[in-house]
């Protein structure tokens, strides 16, 4: 396995705008050549982090290093990173050629060299022939490509992309996702990508950093983020999840029996995490992992009634209502066996299909935060 070299290191960074604490004690290392996505709902601090790396915002505290060199004090034009802006930010008064050439002109590169490189870049984003056009004469997808070409021509160490596909329609988005991913592989440049679209994050990224109210909740590969969400928030935000509040009632080996509000269930304890009896936890089960039977399975007694069924393509989703009124979603392919509407069923699962999360997790931050601000 090749050595992973850090290219951007964010060390204990905080950002406060007036009364708003937008980024909390963030530690994050971005490796050379990777495609890292910052994922989270709006207002989670992801764009602020990107802007701090780009040099448009200054951290309130902490350090940011690019290739081992501290950059917090450097202006955007002194950093070897480039940004693709959400609104594209193309220069409306310049044609495409001049837009793309701008960075090289600023570096005072020779004219012939600029011409050669601009041609090469436009070729790369398949926009050759558009040199004389103005941004207002391009479609959304074309503007997007110009923005990328303009940022890449400076050969940045890191390319920062702030929701670059946000303004495009669904079909174009899908195409551009693939195109961006291929471009990144081809060039081997580190991409830091900000989005609130979990599907986009899952398909494109090498790693995903899930942000929640200024905290980094999880930093992992797409598979791990989906399969083993670290917090309730991550489980909720990425994909569909059934999340149960529970307390640990027995532990035998690596299996625990947990008490839900409505019955008991079994689950596997996470490795390397210590649990105590009667500790509050969240048990998270993906809809496709939920099993059902007429009788009780061993170690489980959760009863419910199938309330309705929804067809989504070739998947059938059954909404099962359990005793405390919580809705449990069970999804199956339409060729699989599904319970009937109105039928009473027992719900269970394979203990290793459950992700057990400490209910502290992200909430504990807020307790500390509120305490340190003198309560709300």
């Amino acid at each position: 396995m090749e050595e992973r070299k850090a290219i951007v290191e964010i060390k204990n960074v905080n950002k406060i705008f007036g009364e708003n604490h937008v980024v909390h004690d963030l530690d994050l290392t971005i490796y050379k050549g990777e495609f890292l996505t910052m994922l989270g709902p709006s207002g989670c601090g992801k764009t602020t982090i990107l802007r701090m790396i780009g040099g448009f915002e200054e951290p309130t505290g902490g350090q940011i290093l690019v290739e081992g060199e501290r950059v917090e004090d450097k202006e955007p034009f002194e950093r070897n990173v480039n940004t693709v802006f959400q609104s594209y930010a193309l220069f409306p008064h310049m044609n495409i050629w001049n837009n793309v050439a701008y960075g090289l002109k600023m570096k005072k590169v020779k004219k012939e060299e600029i011409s050669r490189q601009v041609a090469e870049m436009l070729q790369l984003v398949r926009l050759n022939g558009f040199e004389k056009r103005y941004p207002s004469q391009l479609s959304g997808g074309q503007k997007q490509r110009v923005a990328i070409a303009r940022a890449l021509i400076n050969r940045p160490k890191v390319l920062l992309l702030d929701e670059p596909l946000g303004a495009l329609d669904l079909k174009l988005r899908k195409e551009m996702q693939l195109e961006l991913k291929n471009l990144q592989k081809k060039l081997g440049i580190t991409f830091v990508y900000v989005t609130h679209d979990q599907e986009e994050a899952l398909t494109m990224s090498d790693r995903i950093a899930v942000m929640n109210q200024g905290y980094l909740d999880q930093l992992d590969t797409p598979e791990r983020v989906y399969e083993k969400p670290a917090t309730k928030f991550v489980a909720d935000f990425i994909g569909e999840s059934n999340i149960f509040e529970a307390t640990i009632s027995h532990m035998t080996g690596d299996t625990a029996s947990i008490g839900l509000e409505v019955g008991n269930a079994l689950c596997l304890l996470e490795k390397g995490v210590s649990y105590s009896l009667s500790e509050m936890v969240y048990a998270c089960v993906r809809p496709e992992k939920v099993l059902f039977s007429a009788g009780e399975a061993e170690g489980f007694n959760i009863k419910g009634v199938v309330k309705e069924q929804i067809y989504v393509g070739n998947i059938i989703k059954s909404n099962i209502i359990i005793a405390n009124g919580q809705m449990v979603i069970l999804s199956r392919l339409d060729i699989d066996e599904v319970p009937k509407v109105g039928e009473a069923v027992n719900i269970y699962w394979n203990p290793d299909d459950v992700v057990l999360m400490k209910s502290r997790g992200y909430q504990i931050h807020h307790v500390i935060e509120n305490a340190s601000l003198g309560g709300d």
Partner: protein
Amino acid sequence: MKRSYRARNKTIPLLTTVSPVAIWLILLVAAPLLYVLFLSFLSTDGYNVVFLFTLDNYKNLFNPTYLEIYANSFLIAFFTTAICILVGYPFAYHMARAGKRKKTVMMVMLMVPFWTNSLIRLNGWKTLLGKTGFVNTFLQNLGIIREPVEILYTRGAVLLGMVYILIPYMILPLFASIDKLDHSFLEASNDLGANKVKTFLHVTLPLTFAGIFSGSIMIFIPSLGYFFVSDIMGGGKSQLIGNLIETQFKAGNNWPFGASLSMMLIFLILIMVTVYKKSGGDMEDLGVM
């Protein structure tokens, strides 16, 4: 210490962009006005300002001769404003309802007369309205009047001159507010059974009130000071506050009294602008032509 570097880098652009205007405005707007305030409390020996504190200039404001001039001036300002609203509103309404190209043409045609000096244009009116002018000759030829009538050098002529010079300042804000008006409001009102007149009174007029108000301020205030209009059209017979101030600073050579008159005008304007802002007016609307 780490933040000081970039903080400094923001100070330099801030200073280069904002300090010229700040210095200019302090030296040439704030300081002069404060100096005039100071002057208004000084005395005069008939030729020069004497550094002797007095309130006489303010007492002098209530001299009956001057009260008559204020009354005349306010009357003209009031009627100028009223006529500008009445004449300007239908015009602005028509302009706002025109197509995009026609709007531009109408707007440009409204601005073109501005580029001919207003004094010259007033002289044009003088030629029209004089005893042997077009209007008198025309009326005589029609047999409506036998002898030429005095049109020029009356209060009416001053009023005409004021309206003529100032009406674009009413039409522009009116046009802006009517143009902004969402047509669906009017349709909704019509739909709800209001007829045209009721729609106008209950929907259009209240919604364009801001335009009427800012236009009125832009007309009422200058018309108190446009002494040259009264000089040309009124032949100096119809005195305005502006003429009074002009006299104090030029022929009369009583700067302290002129200063107190100016302060009175400023006080008046302060009240008007405060009311305007309180009723939700935007200051920037007053400065955009």
